[in-house]
């Protein structure tokens, strides 16, 4: 995914979630945004 590639290039670790509803709940609690990255790229 492009987000991952960019993060790697910037030497940043991304803690990807695989549970969108959990992410929405956490975002509401912490007043944060949610980035949802759709991909069909081969693993």
């Amino acid at each position, binding site marked *: *995914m*492009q*987000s991952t*590639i*960019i993060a790697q*290039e910037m030497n940043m670790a*991304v*803690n*990807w*979630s*695989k*549970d*969108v509803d959990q*992410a*929405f709940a*956490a*975002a*509401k609690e*912490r*007043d*944060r*945004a*949610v*980035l*949802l*990255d*759709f*991909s*069909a*790229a081969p*693993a």
Partner: protein
Amino acid sequence: MPVEAHIKEHPAWFHRFEAVWTPTVLLFDSDGKERSRLEGYLTNTDFMAALTSGLGRIAFVHKKYADAERWYDDVVTRFGQSHSAPGAMYWRAVTRYSATHDHTVLSKVAEELRTTYPSSVWASKAIPWLSKG
């Protein structure tokens, strides 16, 4: 809060969020409302600029004008060559106007857009703000 959705692992999410093509990146605010949708590949610079503009949009709609102005300013200054830059310049001015009601920022940005990004649709959108004469 980054979430990955691969079509093989979460096909239902594609339907739920109306993702009709990949890559698609959605940005939601803390209330779960979609505020930005990026469809198709972007260069790294354009991708970063678009995401940053999305954060500006979130701050703007929540009336966090100082935050919004910082995000849009970040796009203009760091990613001035990106496709998002003219829009960010426009919205940076709208944000400042919303915070101050100083209408002169609109005529100034109209001139700035006409000079810096003359072929941009954002320069056209700002035409009504150009000073007469």
